[in-house]
Structures are given as C-alpha cells and as structure tokens.
C-alpha cells in the first residue's frame, strides 16, 4: 500500500497537483509512512523528474512552479517531523537566491531556484529588487553556503559589486560562494566584480554550483580541522 501512495504523491507532484499532494502526504503520515521516506522517495524524486522535464523542454515554467508549490505544501507537513536533532534531512547545501536591487526581472532566477530545489538544495528565494545589505543579513541568518544573484540590467550590476565589497569589508567574503547570472552579465564581467561563479544558463548553473559547493564543503572541513 505505501509504495503506491508514494507513487501517487510523486505523480501528483510531477503534474503540479499541489492540493492532491497535500492530501496524500497527510494520508501517508496517518498511515505511519516515515516522513523521511515520503520526502526522499516521493517529493524529492518527483522534483528531480520535474527538473529533468524542464531541461528536456517537456514542461513550461508554469508547470515547474506548480510542482514547486506541491513540494512546498508537502514540506510544510513533513518539516516539523524531521527537524528534530539527529533527524534532519540530508541536503546538498543551502542556497539563497535573489534578483539584485532595482531589478525586477525574475524569470531566470525562478528557473535556477526550481532546478536547485530539484537537485536537493534547500533554496531561500528572497524575490526581486533586494538590497545588498538585506542579502547579507539573510545569508547570515540562514547560514547559507551560496548566494546566487540574478541581474538583467547593466546599470544594476554595480549593486552586485557593492554586495561583494560589503562582504569583503565585513570579513565575510569567505563565508559564502557568490554566484551570478542573468542576461546583463558575462563571464568577464563576473570576474571583474569578483564573483566566484558565473553561468549562462540554469543548466550550467546547476553543474557549476554542484562543483563549487562540493569544493567549498571540503575546504570548510579542512579549515575546521
């Protein structure tokens, strides 16, 4: 019985039926299916499939957003049960993402956020038009590994430069990987402003972030020894 229920949750998530996901997760929890199992075998597996479908061009961003909503609804039910010490879920890393101050373009950023979620990252999306100091505050508060900033306006890049300067001034530069993307940026520009990572597409972003976070975590461990 539970495996079927898990398949049903996964399928509902893939098709963006967020109300069904909420209902079925509740049902599964009532049936004593371990929350970790629901998370790993239904929700995360489902999101992975959605990510794959996006990359293959089989779904629209609208579909991805409905699946992400389903994920969120499911997580809301599961999170309180697994956030006890020793029972935390395994995540690849914690990522904060935002569109920089004065810029309201958010479509690319949403894609990157959804794909990172599908990859098993915990993603905090601060939305658009976010001031550099707010990004830093939230990054510290949430103890993230990576700050991802999107920018489509040439005249707003200077605020990303501010962000990086502020991090350095506050001696926080090594605490976070700073990734940048969006149509106004290029590899050269990203290096010029001192970012750690640039990607032209969301697919590339995921690959680069996977690598950088692995390195970052390894380095972190060494640093602690």
């Amino acid at each position, binding site marked *: 019985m539970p495996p079927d229920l898990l398949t049903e949750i996964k399928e509902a998530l893939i098709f*963006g039926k*967020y109300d069904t996901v909420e209902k079925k997760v509740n049902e599964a929890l009532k049936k004593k299916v371990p929350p970790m199992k629901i998370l790993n075998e239904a929700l995360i597996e489902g999101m992975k499939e959605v990510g794959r479908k996006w990359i293959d*061009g089989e779904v*629209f*961003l*609208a*579909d991805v*957003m*409905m699946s992400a*909503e389903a994920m969120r609804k499911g997580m809301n039910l599961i999170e309180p049960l697994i956030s006890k010490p020793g029972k935390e879920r395994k995540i690849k890393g914690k990522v904060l993402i935002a569109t920089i*101050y*004065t*810029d*309201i373009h958010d*479509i690319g950023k949403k*894609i990157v956020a959804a794909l990172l979620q599908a990859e098993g990252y915990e993603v905090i999306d601060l939305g658009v038009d976010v001031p550099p100091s707010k990004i830093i505050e939230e990054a510290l508060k949430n103890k993230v590994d990576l700050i991802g900033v999107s920018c489509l*306006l*040439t*005249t*707003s890049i*200077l*605020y990303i430069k501010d962000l990086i300067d502020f991090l350095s001034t506050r001696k926080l530069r090594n605490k976070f990987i700073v990734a940048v993307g969006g*149509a106004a940026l290029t590899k050269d520009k990203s290096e010029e402003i001192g970012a750690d990572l640039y990607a032209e597409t969301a697919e590339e972003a995921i690959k680069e972030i996977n690598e950088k976070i692995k390195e970052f975590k390894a380095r972190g461990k060494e640093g602690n020894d």
Partner: protein
Amino acid sequence: MIDPWEIIGRGEEGPHIPEKEFDMNLFKKLASLEKEYEIKFNGEPLLQDKQMINSIYEAGLELAVETGFYLLDTQRRILFTEDEIKYYLSKSKKKLVLGEGKEAEELVKREINDKKPPLLIAGMAGTPLPERDFFIKSAMSYVKEEVVKGLDHGSITSVEGREVRTGSPLEIHATRREITWLREALQRVGRPGLHLLDGESSITSKGVLSVLSPNYLRKTDAYFVPVLNEMKTDYVRLSKALAGTEYGCLIASLVDPILGGYSRGPEGTAICSIAELILSKIIYQANYFLLHPSDIRVKSTTTPQCTWVLGAVGQAISKNTDLLVFADVWVTSGAGTETVFQEIVPNTLVATYSSLHLLGPVTACGLLPNGTGLEARYMGEIAETTAKKQLKPEIINEVASRYLNLYINKLSSPDLGISFKGLYNMEKVTPRKEYLNTFVANFEKFKKEIGIHD
C-alpha cells in the same frame, strides 16, 4: 476614456489575493481555456483557421474579465466587467499621428492581408550603447532609412565617465542625454519631426518623468510601459502611464508574455496576449501596443511558436478591435551575419499578413550593439513587398517554413555578428560595401522565394 483615479481606486479596493495564488490560478485558467476553446498550435507559422482565431479572442476576453491585472504593491486585482471592457475598446481610435511636421505619419488600423504596408519603427531598442558618437551615428543609420517611420533606440549606461546606477540621479542625466542625442540624430539626417519611442535609459520611473518636457520628449513622441509577466502591473508602471497621459505624449503598452514561462505554450501565450492587450488599453490608457511574445530559452520572437502567436493574436485583435498593434520583432542573430536576414523573414511575413505594424528588428536580442539601419531596411522592404503583393496565406506558410528551417537549429547558439562600427563607415554613416552586398543578395533571394523575378 476612463479617468486615472478610477484605475488607482480599483487597485486599492479590488479583491486581495496573495501573488502566488494569483499565479497558480492563472496557470490553471490558461490550461482550461486552451482546452475549452480548443486552441491548438499545429506547427504552421501562420494560423489560418478562422474559427480558432475567434476562439483565441473570446478566450482572451474571458481571461481579462476573470483575472484582471494584479497590482503588486497592493496585492489586489484591478477588475473590469465585460461590458466595461467592450465599452472602452469601442472607443479606440483607428488612427493616430506619430511624429510632427513633415515627418508626421498616420498610424492606421490594418486589416488582415491589408494592401497598406505596416508602419515600421526601428532601432536598437534598449540595448546599452557605448559613447556619444556611436550612439548618434547608429541612431542616424536607422533614421536614414526611408522605410523607418519612428525610432526606438538604445540606452546610455555611463555619463561623464561615470557608470550609471539604476535609480541614482545619473539615471535622469542618462535619459535626458539619450533624448537630446536622439533629437540631434534626427536633425542631422533632416528628419527632425520623426517619432521617437524612447526614454530607454529610464529603468525606474525617474528618467522618464524627467524627460516629459517639450525640450526632450514631445507630445508626438511615445515611451513604453510594460505589462509585468503575466497579467500584472505595479505603481512604477502605473506612474509612468499616468504621467505620460497627463503630459499628453503617447503611451505604448509593451505586452511581452514569455512563451514557455507563466503563459505556458503558444496557445496560452496567445490567450494571455489578448487579455494583456485589452486590459493595458484601459489600465495604461495606451495609444498603441507592442506585441512581443518571446521564447523563454532563446529569448527571441523568431521561433515557430512565437511566430504563430504573432499571427494568431494579430488576426484575432484586428477582427475584434481597433487597437493599433506592432509586432515587436527580436532576433537572436546580430548584424553582419547571413542568419540575421533569414531570421527576420518569418516574423515579418506573418505579422504583415496578420494586420500588425512592425517594430524592429532588435538584433542579438537587445544585448549587444550589433545592429544597423540595414536590417531595418530589409524588414521594411519585405513588409512592403508582402503587403503590396497580398501574398496568400499558403504562400506565407510555405516561405516562412523554408526560412525557419534555415535557422531553427542555430537559435540556441546564434551568430551574434559584429558591432555597428564594424559594418558602417562611421564618417559617412553608410553601410560598408560587403555588408550592403549581403543585404542585396538576401533581398533578391527573398523576392525569388515569393515568386518575383526581375
């Protein structure tokens, strides 16, 4: 005309809904409208099914009435009843004058397969451009083209050696300088009255508000106010619209649904375009419209799906309303390439047939200064030839498909071409010979494709 306070009032008193819920409802509504109205893209660039064209309009109207525009600042919906929408649409003007003096041009409603050629506005729309000489000369290259009846040029990102930050006081300088330089470009070519669709350096409302003066944007000029994706607006956009309306210049509404994004595929994007056109007519008091269905992955309007949306929406709007709509054509290729001349053709053919006017072509998707007046000449000439010949829809589909096949596999890694400077003689502002030859060869090829042998 609806009074502006009424719009602001509805934005403050309309029903509240969290943004995420608004989005989710929109996704579901679009999917159900596609099904209910049996709207389906069949792979052909030009939609010929009259029934479906009407259904697209009906579905769009239903969406407009049910959803309204979401006002981000108040988290409320701005709603209009079907009767109100129909009333305001019935008051649309079929004719408008763009520009002044001897350059004044009538922008007139076109019918499907109209013999009247589309009116063409061209330029490097919003593309950040380098220094003064480049800015003015590249603008002149478009203004020098006879077929160009309005200019929509690039933006300025530095003044007096300082980079402009969005929203800083320099944004005002940049926008004022942009308009000053554009007017200088018009004068130098001897077309001082030509219509400007500009203020591109204004990212916030500051820049635009500072050029609403006869010294800068004249009342016969326009600037555009975008609809936010999808079915949304905010106070910045409303401020821009309101200030322009009160000043008395023209407002162009930019309807740019993202295909593959929140408006789903071609079918949903067509429905959404209709709803955004008719609601922005009322909410922005727009005088004319830029229809820009761009692809979420390649960012241009030149995919088969986006081309279909232009044609479907153009025909649906012209059958049911008097709105004056431009196809806002964006190509992935840059100037100086062979593909740029291929990529322009399907959009131009389909838009011209489908009653639309033309804006563009914006080369390299507006990211690099790789554009010249010559691509505009090409687009204008193709449009004129197509309209005058009143090409049959079957021919349009055939020729458009042939051209699509030439570039479709290159869309995801396009040839970005070279900068204006490399293609024009900067002293004389004339195209270099080799590039002119590429133009001529491609235009000759086009004429052969549609059966003109001279």
